Structure formats: C-alpha cells, structure tokens
C-alpha cells in the first residue's frame, strides 16, 4: 500500500483543482461528491497504512522520495514523505475527521452561493495539512504549515462581504505569521547547526551535536516552539483563535479545533529528540501550556457566544496538550490530540447544528429548551460535553487523566492546577449545555417556528463522532484500569529514548486515588452547574451589565486592547512617522529638490544664449585659443 501513499495528499489536491476551476459551473451535487469523495479515498489509503503499521507489515519509519525539490549548494531537499506511526496517526485524524466534516458541510453549506468555493478551500486545506504531517523534512512541513495558514485565512474570511470577518481573517493570518517567523528562524538554525533539514539526518545527529552546543539547542527548540505557539494558539499568540469563529462552523470544527491547531503539537512531538535534549525549553513549554489552559478556561466561564465558549475551550485544551509535552509525555500529548479531535469536532458540529436550527443565532442567552426540537444534536452534544469533562469511560477521561498522572509525578501542585483547569472546563461546558438545551426557549417567535433537526448528512457525522468520543479513549487505557496503553506502544518507535523517564512511575494505588479524586470533583462541578443554571435558572447578564472581575473576564482580560495599545498603536505611529515625515518630507524632498534645482539652474543658464552671432563667434575663438594654450603648456 506504500505505493499509493502519494495519492493521499494528491486526491484532495485534484479535488481542489477540479472544484476550484469548475467553481459555479459544476452542479452542487457533483461538487459535494468530488469534495467528500477525494477525502474518503485518502482516508481509505490511510486506513490501509494504519493497518500495515500496526500489523508490522510496514517498517516503522519508511521514507518515500518522489523527486528532488531544492538542489542548490549544500542544500539537498527532496519531496519525500515519512510514513511512521506518528504521521499515520495524524493522517488518520485528518482524513477521518476531515471526511466527516466534509460530509457535514455538504448539508450545512447547501444554501450558500459559495458552495463550490468552500469545498475547493476545504480540499486545499486537507492537502496542505497532509503535506504538513507527511513531509520527511522541515521544508515540506513548512510548506504545508504555510498552506494551512493560507486556507485558514481564506475560510475565516469566507463571507468576505463582512468587514469584521475579513478583519478576523487578517488577524489570524498575521498572528500566525509572527509564529511562522520563529519556525523559519528555527529551521535556518537547524540547517546551520546540522547541515541538513531531513528529519532522519537531524535526529540521528542530535544527541552528539546538542550535547556539544547546549545553547544552540535551546535556541532551536525555543524558536520552533514560538512557531507552535502561533499555530496552536498559546500565550502570547493565542488571541487569534477565538475570532476566526466568524467563518462557517464546520471550518471551526476542522481547522480551529481538530487539525490545524494541533500542528504545533505534532511539530514538537516530531522533533521530540531535540526537545528531550533541551529540558529548559520543556519547562517553558510546560509553564506556557498550563498558564494558557487556566487562563483560557477562566475566559470561557463567562462567554455567551456558543462558538466563543468552544473556542476558548479549544485554547485551553491545547494548553493541556502543551502541558503534557512540557512534562516530556509526548505520547500523552498525542493521545489528547486524538481524543480532543473527536469530541471538539463533535461539539463544534453540534454547535453548528444548533446555529443552523436557530437561523444564525449564536448567543446562548437567546436559546434554551432545544432538547426536544433537536434530539440527535442534544444527545451527541451531551456525549461531547461528558467526554471533554473527563467522565469515565468517555474519551476525554483517559487522555486527561494520563496528563494529570504525569503532572502529579512532577509535582502535586501541577496536578492541582491541572485539576483546576479540568473543573473549569467541566463547569463552562455544562453551563453551555444547560443554557442551550434545557429550560424554556428564550428566542423570538420567528426563530421558534423555524426550529428543526438538521438533515441526515449533518446528523450522521455527529453520531459517528459521538461514537468515537465514547470509544476513542480505549486506545490508551492505562494499566491500572486493566489496559495495556496501546497508543504508547504504538508511538514508542517515534519517541526518543534518550533520558526519558519510566512511564507512570506512580504506583497503581496512587494513580487510582488521583482518578477518584478528580472524577468526583468533576461530578461535584456538574452538580453545581446544574443547580445554578437549571434549578435556580440564573441567566448570564445582558451585554454591558457585568461588573468587577466578571466584566474583566467577559472582556477577555482586555488582552486584545492591551495588544492594540502596546503593539498595534505604536506600529501605527511608526508607520505614520515614516509615511508622513520620513517619506513625505525627507525622501520626497530630495527627489523634488533635484528636479527643482535643475529647473532653477536652467532658468539662470539660458541667459547665456544671447542670440548674437558675433558673441558666439567670439566665445568660440576664445575657446579655441584656450585649447591651443593648454596644448602648448602640456
């Protein structure tokens, strides 16, 4: 099946080309068929690779080279794919979840006039994302990395007639570019240090070179991590992620929850050899991760836009993943990427279904009581919420618990912070669930008469993802619960063994106790949320009525305003300065001055043209005499 590996990214690319070129000339049915079909084709090939890898018929790290891409001087890069457990796992998530979301989009976007354009972008995104995870060197990865950034921009600004949406798209793109610069610099530094950008060359030399140049290693890993903070929305570059919710909801599910934002985590796990050699960077990642997780969770507590809550939840969960990476638990990070892809895509698609039914309404204060009208959406949403809250045996429980176990291993304080984040997650997710689906309907009569369950093409992906959210955790059941942690074994060949600690040094009884504590706290939080939002029916305050700390948090700690005043405004001032002063006065002054001086000079000089022939003759003779004299003197 390795012979067909090139088709995995090629099929979505072909789909993009056909749909993009055909655009409005193709019937919608055909667009949907090509769009979904190409992803399904890739998914089937990926599945065969997955089976091959797990059964051992495909070697653990196969590099397939297709052609020389860049061949200049000492740079020798080929367009080649790396097929190993890690890339196949990511490919499975991308094409699997990607296919479900394509299917969902076919229903969700069916009334949109940009239907074909939407599918073209979506296919291009899947292509770029596959390039990102399949590349066997940093440059192919970077090409995909930029590709997904572009598609993210195009899809956030999909409804380009709205200026706010365009601004959100630009913000996302620019924030990503800041991170990309870090990635690029990291790549250059890798090339200078290792003389190569191929994963295999870099990682095999890493132990010796990183030991000799400790500081360079720190610099490389930190620069790559800056790239990851941009793409995966970590402090300080996280502010772009909540805004893109302007785009179509399936896009938020695919790009801003399940796949693209996990690219940073994938990149760090891919480079885990380097990171293991730089413990300092790991500590920074850990701190950034847990701070982001808690910070974003607090913002999520008071948001009223259904998608904003999910967006901050995504930032928070990504923080969790980085927290795991920072603890050196790479497989755990990937485990959470997988389960998160299932339940967060489910939640976003569920939210999309709700918005679809509410004719575009996104404010949860105007919802309520949707349980009876949208039964399938409700039940799948419940499953997603329970999964993210971490109630056994749903998917989120296993991955979250593994992260917490690793945190406890490092220090009980970190465990406490992790649990705190998990409780906040539980609280705002159940707040969202109760406000949306229980109680009585609070919207307008017009919206009420319009309420309907979504079509089968939208509910089917919901159901599939719900099933995955239930069983997804079983790929990593820890030993204490009678599992073998299949995922850890599966990913073992990719993870560096250098200096890695024994997995789960905790004793089984401790681990079990921790699980019991965190789970019971989660249940307690659910009960609190139930009392507040169902029994007492407390409503979030209307716009502008918040006060004190609630206002601070509702306005996202004014971080956007802070960035605006410390970065955007000074930059504007600088641009104004160079535009109005440097350019208009100095540069233009020089250019205009040259012209002016020629004009004035010629005005004076033209009087020497007297028109008198005898004058000219006289000057000519004088000139000839002067030339003669000069010749004589020489």
């Amino acid at each position, binding site marked *: 099946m390795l012979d067909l590996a090139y088709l995995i990214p090629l099929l979505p690319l072909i789909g993009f080309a056909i749909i993009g070129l055909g655009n409005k000339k193709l019937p919608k049915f055909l667009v949907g068929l090509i769009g979904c079909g190409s992803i399904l084709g890739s998914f089937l090939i990926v599945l065969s690779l997955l089976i091959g890898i797990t059964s051992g018929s495909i070697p653990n790290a196969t590099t397939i080279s297709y052609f020389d891409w860049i061949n200049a001087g000492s740079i020798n890069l080929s367009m080649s794919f790396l097929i190993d457990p890690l890339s196949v796992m990511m490919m499975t998530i991308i094409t699997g979840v990607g296919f479900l979301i394509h299917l969902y989009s076919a229903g969700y976007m069916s009334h949109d006039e940009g239907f074909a354009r939407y599918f073209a972008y979506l296919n291009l995104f899947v292509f770029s994302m596959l390039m990102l995870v399949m590349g066997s060197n940093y440059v192919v990865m970077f090409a995909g990395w930029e590709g997904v950034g572009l598609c993210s921009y195009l899809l956030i600004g999909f409804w380009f007639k709205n200026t706010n949406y365009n601004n959100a798209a630009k913000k996302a793109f620019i924030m990503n570019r800041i991170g990309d610069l870090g990635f690029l610099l990291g790549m250059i530094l890798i090339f200078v240090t290792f003389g190569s950008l191929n994963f295999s060359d870099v990682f095999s030399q890493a132990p010796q070179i990183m030991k000799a140049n400790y500081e360079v290693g720190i610099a490389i890993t930190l620069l790559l991590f800056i790239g990851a903070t941009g793409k995966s929305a970590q402090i300080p570059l996280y502010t772009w992620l909540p805004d893109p919710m302007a785009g179509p909801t399936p896009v938020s599910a695919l790009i801003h929850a399940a796949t693209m934002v996990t690219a940073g985590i994938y990149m760090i796990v891919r480079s885990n050899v380097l990171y293991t050699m730089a413990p300092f960077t790991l500590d920074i990642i850990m701190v950034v991760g847990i701070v982001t997780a808690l910070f974003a969770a607090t913002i999520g507590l008071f948001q009223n836009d259904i998608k904003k809550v999910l967006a901050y939840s995504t930032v928070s969960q990504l923080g969790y993943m980085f927290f795991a990476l920072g603890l050196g638990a790479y497989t755990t990070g990937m485990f959470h990427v997988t389960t998160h892809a299932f339940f967060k895509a489910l939640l976003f698609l569920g939210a999309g279904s709700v918005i679809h039914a509410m004719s575009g309404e996104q404010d949860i204060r105007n919802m309520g009581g949707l349980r009876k009208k949208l039964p399938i959406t409700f039940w799948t949403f419940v499953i997603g919420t329970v999964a993210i809250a971490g109630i056994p045996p749903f998917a989120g429980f296993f991955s979250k618990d593994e992260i917490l176990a690793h945190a406890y291993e490092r220090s009980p304080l970190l465990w406490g912070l992790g649990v705190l984040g998990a409780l906040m997650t539980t609280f705002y997710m159940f707040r969202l669930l109760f406000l949306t689906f229980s109680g009585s309907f609070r919207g307008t009569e017009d919206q009420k008469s319009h309420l309907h369950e979504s079509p089968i093409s939208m509910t089917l992906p919901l159901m599939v993802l719900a099933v995955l959210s239930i069983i997804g955790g079983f790929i990593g059941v820890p030993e204490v619960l009678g599992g073998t942690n299949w995922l850890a074994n599966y990913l073992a060949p990719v993870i560096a063994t250098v200096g890695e600690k024994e997995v789960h040094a905790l004793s089984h009884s401790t681990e079990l106790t921790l699980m019991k504590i965190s789970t019971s706290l989660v249940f307690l939080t659910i009960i609190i949320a139930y009392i507040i939002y169902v029994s007492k029916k407390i409503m979030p305050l209307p716009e502008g009525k918040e006060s004190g700390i609630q206002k601070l948090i509702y306005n996202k700690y004014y971080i956007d305003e802070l960035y605006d005043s410390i970065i955007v405004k000074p930059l504007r001032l600088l641009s104004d300065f160079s535009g109005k002063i440097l350019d208009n006065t100095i540069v233009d002054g020089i250019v205009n001055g040259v012209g002016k001086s020629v004009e004035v000079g010629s005005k004076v000089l033209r009087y020497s043209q007297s*028109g008198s022939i005898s004058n000219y003759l*006289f000057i000519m003779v004088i000139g000839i005499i002067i030339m003669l004299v000069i010749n004589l003197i020489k």
Partner: protein
Amino acid sequence: MQDLLTNSLNGYIFLASILFTIGILGILIRKNIIIIFMSIELMLNAVNLLMTAFSVHHNNSDGQVFVLFIMAVAAAEVTIGLAILVMIYRNTGSVNIDELKKMKW
C-alpha cells in the same frame, strides 16, 4: 627651386599665419556678413597655402589632394551661404550680423 622652397618654409608658415589671423580678426570685428564670409575664405586659403607648402616640403602629394577637396567643399559652402544671405537680406533688409538676434531664449 626645391632647395629654395625648403629653406624658405618658415616664410610660408609666417605668411599663412598672418592670413589666418587677418581672417579671424575679420570675423570678430566686421559686422557685414559678406565681409565675414570673405574672412572665412581667407582662413581657408591660409590653410590651403600651408598644406601646399608642407606637401612640397615633404615631397608628398597628399596635402595638395586635400587642398583640391577643400576648394571644392568651400565652393559648395559659399554657394549655400550666399543663398541663405540673400534670403536674410530679403527678409530683414539688412546684412548686418548684429541684426540677427532672434535665435535666443
């Protein structure tokens, strides 16, 4: 004859220089365009005389060939010059060079 010429080359040079200077002074001082024309011819002929003298002195006929060319070209030039002069006279009623001051800024 040959010797006499060789010995008195200085005399020819002297004569030619005087003629040339008279021509230049004529151009600079006189205002009548016809006189200026004649001065130009004088300068040309001073050069011709010098060329002929050197041609004989070096026993090389190139100089004399050039003289013939110069005379032919000078004839053509004078023809055109006089034609222009006639037109100027018809238009301005004068051949004074100081009258012709129209070609200026």
